C-alpha cells in the first residue's frame, strides 16, 4: 500500500509538472473573452444607395463617385444605357468612432446634399448587444434655375430633408441585415396629391461570397406614395468588390437618384418592365489624420 501510494504521488506530481510546462499560458489565465464590438458589417458606409451599419473611422476621408447609366432596355442604339450617365461625387469624413458626415453633388437636378450619421448602439460579442442602431439625417438643395415664373419661387422650395434609423445585425461573418425606417420631407411637391412627408421602410443586406466579394441588396417599401404619379419602390442589387484601397460597388438598379429624397420620391423606372440601369460606386479611402 505504502509503495503504491508513493508511486501515485510521484506520478501525479510528474503529471502536474508536465502539464504546467506544456501549457505555461494557462497559468496566467486564458485571456478572458472581452466585450468586443462587431466591426466590418459592410465593406463600405453604404449598402448600395442607403447608409449602412458602418461608420468610417476617425481621420478617414472617403471619396465616393457614384455612377448610373441609362436604361438597359434602351437597346443597342443607346448602347444598353451606357450612352447616358448621371453621377454624384461626394466626400465623407469620419469624425469620431461613431460619427461621420458627408457632402455631395449630383448631376441629376444639379443637387447638393449633405448628411450626418451617428451610431448610438454598437453590436458587440461576449455580453454585448446583438444589434446596432444608427441615425442618419440629411438635406438636399437643388440648384436648377427656376423655370416656372408664374408662381413665386421661394428658396426653401429647393430643399428636401430626410431622417432615418438604421437597425441591423451582422448575424454571422458572412451575413448582415439591416432595416431602415425612413421619412423624407419635401418642402415643395409636384402636385397636391403628393405627400410632403413620405414614409418608407428599407431593407439592406450583404452576403459575403469571398473575402473580397459580396452580394448586396438594397430595397425600400414606401408606405404612402402618390399612387397616381407612377413612381416605384427603389431596388438595387449588386456586388461589392474590394481591391486594396478601393471598394467597387457594381449593381443594377431602377433608381436614378443618388440621395434619399430623390430615390424615394422620384424613381419612375420599373424593374418588371426592364427599366433598369447599370451603375457603379467607387469608394476610395484616404487617411487624412493619422492615429497616434
Amino acid at each position, binding site marked *: 500500500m505504502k509503495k503504491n501510494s508513493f508511486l501515485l*504521488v*510521484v506520478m501525479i506530481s510528474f503529471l502536474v509538472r508536465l502539464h*504546467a*510546462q506544456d501549457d*505555461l*499560458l494557462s497559468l496566467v489565465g486564458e485571456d478572458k473573452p472581452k466585450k468586443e464590438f462587431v466591426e466590418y458589417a459592410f465593406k463600405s458606409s453604404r449598402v448600395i444607395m442607403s447608409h449602412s451599419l458602418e461608420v468610417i473611422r476617425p481621420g478617414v476621408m472617403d471619396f465616393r463617385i457614384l455612377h448610373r447609366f441609362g436604361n438597359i432596355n434602351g437597346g443597342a442604339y443607346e448602347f444598353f444605357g451606357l450612352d447616358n450617365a448621371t453621377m454624384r461625387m461626394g466626400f465623407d469624413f469620419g469624425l469620431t468612432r461613431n460619427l461621420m458626415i458627408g457632402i455631395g453633388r449630383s448631376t441629376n437636378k444639379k443637387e447638393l446634399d449633405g448628411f450626418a450619421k451617428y451610431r448610438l448602439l454598437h453590436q458587440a460579442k461576449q455580453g454585448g448587444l446583438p444589434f446596432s442602431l444608427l441615425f442618419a439625417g440629411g438635406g438636399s438643395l437643388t440648384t436648377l434655375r427656376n423655370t416656372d415664373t408664374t408662381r413665386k419661387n421661394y428658396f426653401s422650395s429647393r430643399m428636401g430633408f430626410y431622417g432615418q434609423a438604421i437597425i441591423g445585425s451582422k448575424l454571422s461573418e458572412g451575413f448582415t441585415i439591416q432595416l431602415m425606417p425612413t421619412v423624407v420631407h419635401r418642402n415643395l411637391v409636384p402636385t397636391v396629391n403628393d405627400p410632403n412627408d413620405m414614409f418608407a421602410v428599407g431593407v439592406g443586406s450583404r452576403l459575403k461570397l469571398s*473575402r473580397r466579394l459580396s452580394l448586396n441588396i438594397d430595397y425600400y417599401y414606401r408606405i404612402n406614395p402618390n399612387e397616381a404619379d407612377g413612381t416605384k419602390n427603389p431596388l438595387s442589387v449588386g456586388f461589392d468588390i474590394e481591391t*486594396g484601397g478601393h471598394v467597387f460597388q457594381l449593381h443594377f438598379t431602377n433608381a436614378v437618384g443618388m440621395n434619399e429624397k430623390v430615390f424615394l420620391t422620384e424613381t419612375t423606372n420599373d424593374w418588371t418592365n426592364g427599366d433598369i440601369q447599370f451603375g457603379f460606386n467607387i469608394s476610395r*479611402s484616404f487617411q487624412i489624420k493619422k492615429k497616434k
Partner: protein
Amino acid sequence: MKKLFVIIAAGLVTTSSLVAQDKYFTKSGRINFMSKATLENIDANHKSVTCVLDTKTGNMQFAVLMKGFEFEKALMQEHFNENYVESHKYPKAEFRGQVVNNPEINYTKEGIYPAKVKGTLTIHGETREVETTGNVVVKSGKLQAAAEFTILLSDYKIEIPKVVKDNISNTVRITIDCSLEPLKG
C-alpha cells in the same frame, strides 16, 4: 487510505509551489511588425501580448490576439483582419518554445544575457519552426526579454493578391519586447 490523500495533497502542494516560483510573466508585452515595400510600409503595434517564461526549464510561450494589432491607417487594420490573417477564424497567434541556452542565463544575477530561442509559431492556423537570438536583461527582480526575427507570409498561407503584390512584401520583421514579472503561485 487517509494517509494516501495526505501524501498526494502534500505532493501536489510542493510541486505546484516549487514550479510557480521560477516563472515570470506579462500580459502587456509589446510586439511590432513591420513590412517594407516600395509603395508604403506596413507597421503595426500590439501592447497586450501575453508571455510566460519558466526560468527553470527555459520554456517560453507567447499568445497574441490578432485583433489587438493597431495600425496607423484604419483601412490597413481592416484589411489585415478581414483579408489577410482572417482574425475571426484564427483569433490567436501563439509561440511555444524554449530558451536553448537556458543554463547559461543566471536569472538571479543582474546582467544582460544573450538568449537563443527555438520553437513553433502558429499564425493563421499554420505552424512553423522559428529560431532567433535575443536578449534577456535581469534587473531588480524583473526580466526584460527582447528579440527580433523575420517570417514569410507565404509560410503561414497568408495570401497577397496579385494586384497589390508590389505594395505588400512577403517578408515581415517582428520585434518583441516584454517586461516579465515573477508569477506568484
